Structures are given as structure tokens and as C-alpha cells.
């Protein structure tokens, strides 16, 4: 059965490509989206990531057709869709609340889109069976949705949105109501479905870990603006500004100035650090950003180290977070693998040096 789904996906072409062109959305005097432009490629698992209120759900609702844009336009495979109502867009949504029809059975929910498309009864029955098998719920077809658990309802919502074979599937924080274990299982499941079905997925979340593990590309948004679009590695290792660096994972920020050559960074206390990669900073006031796992603790001062003292050590199983207080009131977090040893010997108040490797630090504006 799965084979046939894949074949059909191949026959009907690949997942749709979306272009969002300078879309702005005003709610009264509040600007929810500010000239957002992005390209979502065919067959891509694309994630809109940002804190709540950043405009990611508004953008998703515009792609679905529930909101109209104040300015700009949205194209699907090159055709403008902004003026089409939701029921004329080959785009389906998995709602955060699931929005399953409570008066229908599981099978009727999954078959609803096909019925509205005017497909034949037999075809609907076949597709529903296939979809329910795909999400492993075929034994519950005749149940009412109220009798299902949260995880099962989530799968029904997914099957219902996939059944009409949309070109693009929109997912609005679909995993936020599930517990950790179920969420991790569903992450793998979603990724598998996306690959097998050949549908472009646009996934909205505020959970950066979820975004990093599932996405082909991520768009980081804040206050209605697009800050950075890139692969998970791009976003994590080469954040373009302080917000992205701070929002994705844990980051140490060291303030100071960058010299004209762009290779020497002077901290507030006058320590000079050689730096490599550049973010969006010019010479002058700048911030050095570096991940806790990229810092190293060393016993004695050498090139590119900052002196300090151990404040505390927090054990996390595979690694430990070592909090170091450096000169000038600078606090750094260093993540050290426990298997490498030496962490358990660290004592509070012990003098230490933190090495800031030139090749992994990143210089950002301000």
C-alpha cells in the first residue's frame, strides 16, 4: 500500500513550491508581518520558527487562506493563490487544536476532504483505509473521535489532511499537546511521511530542538520579521544576529570591539582574542558569540584564553555545565563531556582559564 502511495505521489508530480513575496499583514495598527519574503522548495520540510507572537502562525494562516495579506502575494508553483479561498487551494492544514469533526467517525473525518472533492465512494473508502494504515489507526476507523487519546487524535488529523494528497501540508504546532515520548515518536513519523509521500511540509513551532531535528530548512522569525533562513547547521553554527544565536540553543555572548582587520576582538577588560568567522558585524562595537560546547577549560593561560574562577558545576549525565565567572563580571557556560574526565575534579572557586577557539566563535553586531 505504501508503495502505491509513493507511486501516486510520483505520478501527480512533486510537492508544491511556495513563494512568499513581500507579505505584510496589519491587524489594525499592529503589524503582524513586515515584508516577509521566502521561498519554500518542492518536497521540502520547511519550518517557521520563532517565539509566540512572531507572526509564524499568521503567515501559515495566509498560506492556508484563512487570512488575507495587506500587501504582497503568495504563489504556489508560480501561480498566485492570494485571492483563492481556502477550499480552492491544494493545501491542507493540521490544526494545533486538531479541529476534528466531533460528530463524525474517524473514517468520515479522514474521508471528508475526498468527499468534498467529489471523489467516488469506493475510492474514498480505499484511500481512507490506506491513510489510516499509514498512521497505524486502521483498527479504530469506526470510532467517534471523542473516544480517542490525544496522540490518536493527532494521527487522525494528520491522516485527514494527507488523504486528499495536497501539494503542501501546513502543520501548526501539531506536537505541542503531546507528552515528550509521543512527541519524539511523532517527529520521526512526520519526517518519514514527508519523505514517502512527496509533499512539501511547512511546519510551525516555537521549539528550536524540534525545528533542528526535523527540518530541511528553517526560517527564524521575530516580531513579524524574517531574521534568517537556512539549514539547521546554518542556523545553529552561523547565526546572523544575536537574536538567532540566543533563540537557537544556548550561547555565550562576550561584548567588546572588533578591529579594522576583523581578526582581533578586544573584550571589555582588554583581553585580545583572535577570531575567525564573521556574522553581521563591522569594525567597532561588537559581540562575540560562542556555544558552550565550543569553549574549553584549560589549567593555564595561553593564546585566546580568558581567566576566571569556577562558580558551579551542574551534572547532566553525558555532559556537565560548568559556570565560570570571568574578569569584568562576564559569566560563561562551558559544556564538558563527562567521559573526558577532569570535570569531577573541579571545585567551586578554583581559578581556571576558558579557551575561546578562533574557528568556532562568531562576531555579531552590537
Amino acid at each position, binding site marked *: 500500500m505504501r508503495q502505491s502511495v509513493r507511486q501516486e505521489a510520483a505520478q501527480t508530480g512533486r510537492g508544491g513550491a511556495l513563494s512568499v513575496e513581500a507579505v505584510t499583514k496589519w491587524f489594525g495598527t499592529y503589524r503582524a508581518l513586515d515584508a516577509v519574503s521566502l521561498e519554500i522548495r518542492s518536497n521540502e520540510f520547511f519550518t517557521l520558527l520563532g517565539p509566540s507572537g512572531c507572526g509564524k502562525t499568521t503567515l501559515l494562516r495566509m498560506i*492556508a*487562506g*484563512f487570512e488575507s495579506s495587506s500587501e504582497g502575494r503568495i504563489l504556489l508553483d508560480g501561480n498566485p493563490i492570494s485571492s483563492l*479561498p*481556502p*477550499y*480552492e487551494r491544494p*493545501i*491542507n*492544514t493540521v*490544526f494545533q*487544536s486538531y*479541529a*476534528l*469533526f*466531533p*460528530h463524525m467517525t474517524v473514517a468520515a473525518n479522514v474521508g*471528508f*476532504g475526498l468527499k*468534498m*472533492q467529489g471523489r467516488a465512494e469506493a475510492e474514498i473508502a480505499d484511500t481512507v483505509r490506506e491513510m489510516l494504515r499509514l498512521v497505524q489507526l486502521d483498527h479504530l476507523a469506526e470510532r*467517534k473521535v*471523542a*473516544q480517542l487519546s490525544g496522540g490518536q487524535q493527532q494521527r487522525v488529523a494528520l491522516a*485527514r*489532511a494527507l488523504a*486528499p494528497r495536497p501539494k503542501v501540508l501546513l502543520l501548526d504546532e501539531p506536537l505541542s499537546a503531546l507528552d515528550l515520548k509521543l512527541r519524539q515518536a511523532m517527529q520521526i513519523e512526520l519526517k518519514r511521511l514527508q519523505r514517502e509521500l512527496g509533499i512539501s511540509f511547512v511546519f510551525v513551532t516555537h521549539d528550536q530542538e524540534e525545528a533542528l531535528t526535523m527540518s530541511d530548512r528553517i526560517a527564524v522569525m521575530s516580531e513579524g520579521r524574517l531574521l534568517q533562513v537556512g539549514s539547521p547547521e546554518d542556523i545553529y553554527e552561523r547565526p546572523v544576529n544575536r537574536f538567532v544565536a540566543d533563540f537557537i540553543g544556548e550561547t555565550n555572548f562576550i561584548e567588546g570591539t572588533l578591529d579594522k582587520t576583523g581578526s582581533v576582538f578586544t573584550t571589555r577588560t582588554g583581553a585580545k582574542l583572535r577570531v575567525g568567522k564573521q556574522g553581521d558585524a563591522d569594525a567597532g562595537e561588537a559581540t562575540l558569540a560562542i556555544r558552550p560546547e565550543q569553549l574549553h577549560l584549560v589549567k593555564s593561560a595561553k593564546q585566546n584564553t580568558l581567566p576566571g574562577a569556577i562558580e558551579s558545576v551542574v551534572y547532566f549525565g553525558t555532559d556537565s555545565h560548568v559556570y565560570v565567572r570571568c574578569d569584568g563580571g562576564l559569566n560563561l557556560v562551558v559544556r564538558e563531556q563527562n567521559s573526558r574526565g577532569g570535570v569531577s575534579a573541579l571545585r567551586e572557586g578554583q581559578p581556571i582559564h576558558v579557551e575561546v577557539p578562533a574557528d568556532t566563535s562568531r562576531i555579531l553586531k552590537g
Partner: protein
Amino acid sequence: MADLAQRKPIDVRRQAGFGTIAIACVAVLYLPIVVIILYSFNSASSLGANFKGLTLEWYRLVFADAAFFEATWMSLVIATCATGIATVLATMAALGTTRKREWTGQRAAFIMINSPLMVPEIITAISLLVFFSSLSTYTGIEFGIGKLILSHTVFCIPFAYLPIRARLEGMGLDLEQAAADLYARPRDTFRYVTLPLLAPGIGSGAALAFIVSFDDFTISQFVAGPGETTLPLYIWSRIRRTLTPELNAMCTLILLVSIALIVVGFVIANRRKSEK
């Protein structure tokens, strides 16, 4: 805080005098009805006489009274028509005031729809009387029973509107958006999603409208023409002539039918629930 959390919530049933007040309230509500039922079997020949003995004579007289059945039929026809029209209008009004973007005058519309609840009934009654009689004078058309149906429709609308609107507000927009997302045109969204989910609200709105119409006296009294006697009007006219225990029997019969309807409704609702 801990103190507050530990303190038990006030249990109204433990307040002094609760039992007495509760019993008094129930007694005031139901004793008159019990008295009517008992006296419908009383063989004494006047309404308020002492209890003499058991008889079914009054029921026999009621069943022999063609005018009683005519009036009942008249009331049923009017209530059914008025409920039907009012429920359709109320459903449309409820959709218009909850499923559209907020529009200018929406609050005013809400107040106007519900105004029959607030305007004293006697005023509505007089204005309807004046309205229909001047309409007949100018157009020369007699509206007959139509006058009663339209008048009842007017005051039935808010009773049907409120439960339907409450249901719509409780539903949120998610489900209808999900339907639209799944290729349902607005008409299909209404047919397959909105209407089935709204049905309980429409049901209780219609039931309320029916009861209010069936029960109406004031407005019917003003608007009804000759030969358009509804059940409340008929009973009233009987009281004015002679007070016979037949009235007790009539009321008991009406009560019996009402209780039967409530029981049937309850059983249907329960069966639906257990099917789920």
C-alpha cells in the same frame, strides 16, 4: 494561602434553614399543581369545594367538549408555524451575528432581536393590534390566523435565538475552517459541519419557542379575531362563564401531555449520548 486552601468551600446545604427554605420553595412551585390534579377527580360540582369523592366525570365532559379540541388544535397549529418561522429566522440571525466579521450596528441588531424580551408584553400586544387593524383598513386584506402566527413569531424569535447563538459562540471557528481547508464550499461547510453541530442549539431554541407560543395569552387575546380561539383563550373564556372542575381535568390533561413530551425528549437525548 495554605490556610485558605485547607478551608472547606462553603456548603450551602449546611447553612441553617436550608432544608426549610428548599421545601417551602418546592411546595410553592408544585402544591397548586398537585391540588389541580387531585381536584380533577373530585366529584363535588364546583371548583373550590371540599373533596367529596372520586369521579372521572370531568374527564368525560372534557373529551365530549369539541371546542376544547378545536382550541387545542388551533394552539398547536399556531405554535408549530410560529416556531418553524422563528427558528429559521433566529438561526440566520445567530449566524449573521457570530459568523461574520464584526459589522457596524451589530450590537444594535443584537438588542433589536432580543427586544421582545424586554418590551412589556402588553405594549407589543397593543402595537400588534393597531398594526394589523390599520393594515387591514388600508389594504382591505383580512389576515385571519396569519395575524396570530406572525405575532407569535415576533416574540418567539429571541427565545429561539439565544440558545442557538450560545451554541455557535461555544463552537469556535476551527471546525468550519478545517472544513473549508478540506475543499468544502461554504454551502457544504454549513450542511456537513455547522448545521449538525448546531442541531442541539436549534432543538432547544425551537422547544423554547414552541412552549412560549403555546402558552401565550396576552398577545393572542389582543390579536385574535373571532373564531381564532387558542387554548389559553378558551380556558380563560370558560373561567369567566362558570368555574367547573372540568377546568381541572383540562389542565391535568395538558400537564400529562407536557410531561410525556419531556420524558420522550429525555429518553432520545439519553439514547444519543449512550450511542456515543
